[in-house]
């Protein structure tokens, strides 16, 4: 209940801060909020845009939920998203399912590089996952300028993928995949032995180890699952929306996943609502840029505000507990 209130409060704060920023820059805050709202929900087209944006956000959010629940700082959803998209493109000649599987495996492999570095060399995954993001971005840059460049070689982008996700009522099937993933993640965390161990590992690794849980293996599996989900996000975005690979494919979906997950209080089902909110936010911000010339980067700013608000609220609530007993 408190988590829900915190979430709503944080979301409202993000909109308020955004309106304020716009006001300081000389735009009318009412107009700005109006455009934001209309752009996100004002027409069937806008709603479709919002849902399309929410799909990858939900998946990257779930990626972060799983990792954070296991106590691993996977800041690498962005890179895992990108390698997932590349793998999906390469797998697309073999059909949609093969393509999605390739995306999942690629994401899992990419996140597991960070795990391997943690387990063998004690390199902090906070840093390795971020560095792997940069590397993925440049690999994407290389493939669309080099080996996978379109046959006409006009733009730095690939040819369209050989297969695509089926469309259901003008929304690609990624919507179903993402919702199913959210339910599966919930099931995993709260209804399976694996989930029990994963949460225990995240909350108190020492107690988990003493109770006989193999903590490193647990972390490795959580990271692989987390990476796989981000990889699928990339695959879904490619086969459902962009169809081609190009340099700015990810546009921060990975980092936004952190905001989605935290706004949802790291709950898989809550992430659905949270992803829809951010989907609307990002879509509305895009409309703002088109109509008012306000940079869509304001959406990034709004996400940061949401994260900080949730973190602050959480910290202030827990600090009420006795410091000593």
């Amino acid at each position, binding site marked *: 209940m408190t988590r829900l209130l915190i979430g709503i409060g944080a979301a409202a704060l993000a909109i308020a801060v955004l309106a304020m920023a716009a006001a300081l820059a000389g735009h009318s805050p009412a107009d700005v909020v109006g455009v934001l709202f209309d752009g996100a929900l004002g027409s069937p087209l806008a709603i479709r845009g919002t849902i399309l944006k929410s799909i990858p956000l939900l998946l990257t959010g779930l990626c972060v939920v799983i990792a954070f629940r296991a106590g691993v700082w996977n800041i690498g959803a962005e890179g895992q998203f990108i390698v997932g998209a590349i793998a999906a493109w390469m797998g697309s000649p073999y059909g949609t399912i093969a393509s999605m599987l390739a995306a999942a495996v690629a994401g899992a492999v990419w996140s597991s590089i960070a795990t391997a570095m943690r387990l063998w060399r004690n390199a902090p995954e906070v840093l390795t996952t971020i560095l792997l993001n940069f590397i993925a971005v440049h690999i994407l840059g290389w493939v669309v300028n080099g080996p996978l460049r379109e046959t006409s070689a006009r733009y730095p982008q690939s040819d369209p993928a050989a297969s695509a996700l089926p469309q259901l009522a003008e929304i690609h099937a990624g919507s179903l995949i993402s919702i199913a993933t959210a339910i599966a993640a919930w099931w995993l965390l709260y209804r399976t032995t694996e989930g029990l161990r994963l*949460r225990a590992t995240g*909350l108190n690794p*020492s*107690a*988990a180890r003493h109770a006989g849980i193999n903590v490193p293996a647990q972390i490795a599996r959580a990271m692989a699952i987390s990476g796989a989900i981000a990889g699928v996000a990339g695959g879904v975005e490619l086969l459902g929306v962009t169809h081609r690979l190009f340099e700015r494919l990810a546009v921060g979906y990975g980092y936004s996943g952190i905001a989605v997950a935290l706004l949802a209080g790291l709950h898989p089902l809550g992430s659905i609502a949270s992803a829809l909110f951010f989907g609307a936010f990002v879509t509305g911000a895009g409309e703002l840029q088109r109509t008012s010339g306000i940079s869509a980067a304001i959406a990034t700013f709004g996400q940061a505000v949401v994260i900080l608000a949730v973190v602050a609220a959480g910290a202030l609530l827990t600090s009420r*507990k006795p410091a000593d*007993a």
Partner: protein
Amino acid sequence: MLQLSHITKRFGQTLAVDDVSLSIAPGQIVGLVGENGAGKTTLMRIVAEELRADGGAITRPERIGMVHQHFAIVPEMTIAENLALIDRTAFRFLSLGSIERDAEATVQRSGIALGDVSRRAGELSVGEKSKLELIKAIAVDPTLLILDEPTSVLTPMESAELFGVIRDRTRRGTAVVFISHKVPEVLEIAQRVVVMQRGKIVADTPRAETTAETIADAMVTGARATSPAGSPARSTERSTPLLQVDSLALHRNEIVAIVGVAGNGQTDLIERLRATRRETRIGFIPEDRTRDAIVAEMSIAENLALGERRWSKRAGAARAKSLIDLYRIRATGPRQRAGDLSGGNQQKIVLARELDRRPEVIVAAEPTRGLDIEATRFVHEELRKAVAAGAGLLLITSDLDEAFALADVLHVIYRGKLSEPLTPATAAERAGRLMAGIS
């Protein structure tokens, strides 16, 4: 000098200090005794301005030095650097030579022998660390010195040295509060004994007018924990041991105790034991419950299921219900957060989880530390039952009484080395000296 009137302090729902009034005169040594959780430490932390009281008034002496039960030293730094930390001057340049000279002078003034001050604090023995803490507290020349369980990690000889230092301080007018739950020790050093129970002062008498028995009675409400005489039937034939490390062998139906002052290599020993027999089913009861055994944010049912191979929410809840009954865990139900339970009930969860798996070997480290008498007795009973059912129990404890009450065989551990096996009969006279490193 120190004047407390009507001090109260709450932690959530528990009243840790309940309307306490107390005054202490210069040069006095006050023994503050009580069971774990009686509120001794909380009261003194209020005196030392580390905690704020919820109600009441305090008149404090000028300088208060408090030595905590857990060390407040920086292991990465040298003794000299640790002592330089207490320098109150706002800013000063340091050189390696100057801080070591200053440190040596500080140590000298304290009257405590500590040796080379360029050693890293992390490399010191537990006894030396506690001396360093004492030196730090004395260095500010306190008018009131509070010592919280200072002897819990000391050998008898080191304790005697500590008592000498305390007496020396009081001759210069320092008042000393000596917090302990060891009655004989308090009777040895204190001039006045204050007994706390459940946040209240229940007795306050001059040393001369009290006895160990009266103090012990005042500390507890219930009866003393007495172990039922006689151990469960044990097979006399010596089968192959379940565990064997050096001279230590653990058989079925047997309780082997390893006694020693904390920090003498017990942790390493446990890790070695766990490594030797990976395939054996080991039930493990760690020393630090909240750090190593309980996931505070999870429910009782989830904590009970942590070691399970297969878990489902429904079966887990049913099993939790029966274990809660069986182990008399006082809780609102399987869904209650484990972190909200008392220490004794948390320990019962650990016990239930580890023993219900019917382990061949049970390793229990300080299984009753911080528990009240009733919970202590319960833990001892359950451990005995498990051993009677065929398990071997390795008990790691710093409490000689606990070892004598339970064990068939004792080993003393000192600086990582195990003594030869002792029977309770032979151990009675030797264990204390072995713990102090005198063979």
